[in-house]
């Protein structure tokens, strides 16, 4: 199968997956977590964010799927409206992949690079 066809299928598959992940993301972050009462602040968000590693997994997956789907969509639009040759398209693809990698690292870093996590876990266990 050609890469273009795989890309086309992946756009549909990630789209369907994003719908599921969006529902999970909303359920976890806005309904099951204790954020619906009182005012939202750093403490509630931080506690909610890190109280279950599976939820972090869901959010990271959501980010990666959204990045692929979104940047691939952007690539489709750019290639549709621009008169560039094969090499130009390659440059666009490489640039978008690099943007995606940096963006993904930036998002995952919000979880893994957070030094305040330890503090939050202690707070969470103290509350139980």
């Amino acid at each position, binding site marked *: 199968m050609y890469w273009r066809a795989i890309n086309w299928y992946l756009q*549909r598959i990630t*789209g*369907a997956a994003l*719908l599921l992940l*969006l529902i999970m993301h909303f359920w976890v972050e806005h309904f099951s977590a204790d954020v619906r009462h009182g*005012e*939202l*602040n*750093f*403490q509630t*968000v*931080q506690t909610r*964010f890190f109280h279950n590693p599976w939820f972090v997994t869901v959010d990271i997956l959501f*980010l990666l799927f*959204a*990045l692929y789907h*979104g*940047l691939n*969509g*952007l690539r489709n*639009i750019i290639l549709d409206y621009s008169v560039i040759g094969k090499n130009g398209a390659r440059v666009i693809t490489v640039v978008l992949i690099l943007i995606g990698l940096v*963006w993904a690292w*930036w*998002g995952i*870093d*919000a979880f893994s*690079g*957070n*030094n*305040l996590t330890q503090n939050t876990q202690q707070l969470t266990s103290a509350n139980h």
Partner: protein
Amino acid sequence: MTTSTAQLLVRKYRWRYAGMIGYYLQRVTGLALLGYLLLHVHTINLLKDPAKFDEALATFRSPLFKLAEIGLLATVILHALNGIRLTMVDCGVGLTKQRQIFWCFAIGVGAILFLAGAIPMLMHINFQGAK
């Protein structure tokens, strides 16, 4: 009873261009969602700095951002439901009914879902300023 020019125009657009409207709708909402993802990841990164994060939350409490949030809801719903329609078209499901699916499902059901979410959101906007 005669049909007015306006009605004819509406009919023409509704039936002839449903696919094209859906096509542009998907592109515009998709770009908007990508822009939102940028803002969202930026905000979540601020969790490393409590003061900055609370500052961002204060900004998001302003009526302008609450309205933008309601706009985001509309954007997500349109992109998701129209995306379902597109996938159905790609799979050859309901090809002859794709215009009806666009107006009744993507727009109609979308509007109901949007109102179900937007009305409670609107009621929570505090136009007097932050609490």
